[in-house]
């Protein structure tokens, strides 16, 4: 593969011009009394510092450790996740899909960037990139291989395209060698990518 695609989806226009355009817009909206700058700060702080994949890791760890919770999560993910205190915007309608030795699940939004904010925070840049959005549905194994996940042909790959308001959380397979671990210990093995299906949970040795 060539390198022509490196970063042109990341920052195209000169940043100073963009910064000026955004400043102008915020000034305008504040002066018109349409936005409260303190509300903007709070929105940013929420998703930069408070909500993130550690939330989802707690959900997964609990599902691994507690068979009753796992059943509830698979039956009604919205309620099961809310019972741990994670709910709200972009997580109003949750579905949990479980990886097994027979089936690997991968989540994408080919049309935009839908992502389960309350459990994973805001999506990484790659998740929103044309490369991922275009290829996850047509060549998921090739995409997974680029993430270091090589699946045998015998494993069924299910790709969930988030075209509606349902948001998907992948429950990765519990790593071997973690028998008797606490939920806190287990949560430390759950990576963000594993909850998108683009990775596996860390093994105890890799910690």
């Amino acid at each position, binding site marked *: 593969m060539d390198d022509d695609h490196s970063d042109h989806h*990341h920052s195209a226009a000169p940043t100073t011009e963009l*910064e000026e355009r955004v400043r102008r817009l915020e000034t*305008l909206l504040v002066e018109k009394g349409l*936005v409260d700058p303190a*509300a903007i700060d709070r929105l940013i702080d929420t998703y930069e510092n408070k909500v993130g994949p550690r939330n989802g890791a707690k959900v997964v760890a609990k599902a691994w450790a507690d068979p009753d919770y796992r059943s509830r999560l698979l039956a009604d993910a919205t309620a099961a996740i809310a019972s741990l205190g994670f709910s709200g915007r972009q997580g*109003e309608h949750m579905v949990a899909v479980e990886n097994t030795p027979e089936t690997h699940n991968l989540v994408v939004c080919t049309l935009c960037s839908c992502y389960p904010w309350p459990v994973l925070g805001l999506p990484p840049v790659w998740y929103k*990139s044309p490369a991922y959005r275009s290829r996850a549905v047509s060549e998921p194994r090739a995409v997974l291989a680029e*993430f270091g996940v090589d699946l045998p042909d015998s494993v069924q790959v299910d790709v969930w395209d988030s*075209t509606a308001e349902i948001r998907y959380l992948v429950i990765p397979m519990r790593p071997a060698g973690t028998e008797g671990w606490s939920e806190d210990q287990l949560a430390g093995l759950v990576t963000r990518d594993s909850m998108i299906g683009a990775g596996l949970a860390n093994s105890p040795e890799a910690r």
Partner: protein
Amino acid sequence: MNGIHDLGGMHGFGPVRKDADEETFHGEWERRVFGLTLAMGATGAWNLDMSRHARERMDPADYLRSSYYEIWLAGLERLLRESGIVDETELQSGRPLAGGVRPPRILKADDVAGVLARGASCERASESPAIFAVGDRVRARNMHPAHHTRLPRYVRGRPGVIERVQGRFVFPDAHAHGKGESPQWCYSVRFAGRDLWGEDAEPQSSALVDCWESYLEAADR
């Protein structure tokens, strides 16, 4: 609409590149665009489907040339103009003029936590039973509406099987155009890789796509 945003199955974008860092935002301007977009979304001047439709109407070449938050910025400016809240002169100058439409409410800092925690459920009470059941064979309709739709091109005309009945949800094709919520049943439909990509499909793969009822027709195959 058959827009540039509908990327599923396209070639030419190269490998997926993992992020160089784990930063949520890259630069202060991205933070502000994110915050402004959510804050203006909370005013009730438009809905989420209108926001998506504003972004996907961006000039196709500009869309691919732009970074993610540039697309959000252009979408927000478009929504502000189209809703009559600000005009082009104001956007260019950054200085407010008299007049302009007032949105229903303003998001105050103290309301942020509550608004985010509540979210906005799109599920609506059922008035009629779902037509399809899990296991039913269906076909995604071959349709090419010029308006907003959430049926991606790569499944149109393709056979699939109902995997889950998700509930009855606000219909984006109507909601994005101010035509009310018109809720419909929504299903997760399993499309086999072979049915989508023919001989070029990878082995043992499926795409599961959430489809509103009117996107589907019964199939016997």
